[in-house]
């Protein structure tokens, strides 16, 4: 009994239909939360006593960084499921997530750089967080590059799944080693706001943005997943029905 939903999840036409219905349920709340978070963070929250208004970019930077990791983990889990249980849809989820994750990583890097610029005087410092994000970006690019190196889609799926699993094991190791490396040299770092704890008026909008970004990823994933599934199953008969105008 418990397995039927699992196996239905593996059926592409089922996933396509469910994804279509579920998307607005994620997209609208995401939009509302993001707008609310932006208003809360950019307008309502008080200025930081040390950084003034410059810190406000955290409301985009922190959720982006958080998502870059969450998406990688999701990608790796989906790839692992696809590898072990040979579910094509799981591989489609991983494939659809990768560019989204890479974009979040890039956004985290850009916003991080913009955040630090007024304080550092330069647009880049080898801050542990930024360095880790940069390495994560390389991991994403490696994954996408490996995928595109194979003509046979099934092989591309399975080989890149092994890479994703190996990568996810390495992410904590890489992060720890970068933090260790950084602590040896004490360069200027950002990401630490004046007070040790944030007041709720600053913290709540951050939380709202985090949830909003997560829902946004969900909605975007579903949209891309539908495209992936259609493309992979294009030879199947249900696809003709589904794309009928």
């Amino acid at each position, binding site marked *: 009994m418990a397995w039927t939903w699992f196996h239905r999840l593996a059926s592409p036409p089922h996933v396509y239909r469910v994804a279509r219905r579920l998307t607005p349920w994620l997209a609208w709340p995401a939009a509302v939360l993001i707008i609310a978070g932006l208003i809360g963070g950019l307008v309502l929250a008080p200025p930081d006593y040390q950084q003034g208004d410059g810190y406000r970019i955290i409301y985009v930077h922190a959720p982006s960084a958080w998502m870059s990791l969450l998406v990688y983990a999701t990608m790796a889990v989906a790839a692992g499921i696809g*590898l072990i249980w040979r579910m094509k849809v799981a591989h489609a989820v991983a494939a659809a997530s990768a560019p989204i994750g890479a974009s979040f990583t890039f956004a985290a890097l850009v916003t991080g750089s913009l955040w630090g610029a007024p304080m550092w005087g330069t647009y880049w410092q080898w801050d542990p967080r930024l360095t880790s994000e940069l390495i994560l970006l390389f991991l994403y690019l490696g994954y996408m590059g490996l995928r595109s190196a194979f003509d046979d889609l099934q092989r591309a799926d399975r080989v890149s799944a*092994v890479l994703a699993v*190996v990568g996810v094991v*390495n992410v904590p190791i890489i992060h720890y080693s970068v933090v260790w490396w950084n602590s040896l040299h004490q360069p200027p770092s950002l990401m630490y706001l004046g007070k040790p704890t944030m007041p709720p008026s600053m913290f709540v909008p951050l939380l709202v943005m985090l949830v909003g970004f997560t829902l946004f990823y969900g909605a975007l994933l579903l949209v891309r997943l539908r495209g992936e599934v259609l493309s992979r199953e294009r030879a199947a008969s249900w696809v003709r029905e589904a794309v009928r105008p």
Partner: protein
Amino acid sequence: MPDSGAVTSPLRPAFSTAGDAAGAAVSAVGAARLVLARDLKLAFRKRSQLVQPLAFFAIVTTLFPLGVSPELPRLRPMAAGVLWAAALLASLLALELLFRDDAQDGTLEQYALSGRSLTWLLAAKTAAHWLLTGLPLALMAPLAGIALGAPGAAVPGIVVSVAVGTVALSLIGSIGAALTLGVRRSGALLSLLTLPLDIPVLIFGARATELAISGEAYGVPLQLLAALAVLGLTLAPLAAAAAVRINLE
């Protein structure tokens, strides 16, 4: 009627029947040792190939004084980093030797069909690879270190840190090499896949070498490096075997 006696002539092949692992007289370790021996023998017959990564290492190291400054006092602070960057790149170059040949002539396929654990056999191949590329690199590294201003007393520290580090690099590299088995002109892709995973090795290794060069105790980063090597030893051959099987499908 099959012969069960010890003397078997090719005209009457004797084989064990269903359920009996065909002549399991070779243990997993024995098979691994055989694979190791074969790879070493093959490499010695094509010795010129082994020199290339070392020459590459020497050339890359030379680029830095040429590009920065000939003054040793200016080079010494960067010596560890330069040495390690060069070692990483040289080990990447050497990865070509690991699986490519065997994949092309069907030997890897036979290993997958041998009834032996592919993980063990690939671990043996990686061990051979380290003996042929990593260890020589570790022995050559002090020369590069001295050329960049390291004192003679730093030599043991440099050798040990690079030796342990290259073990981890060979193991991590074996994953990338297994993943890109079927890809033509995989050099750039292999680098993109392997180098981010190599970064922790670089960080701990360079720190150990740096401390060795400045005469301080390098035990802590060396232990972290050894931990990475051990982790690689347990996980990398598994991942490589999975990747090889997928590429053989």
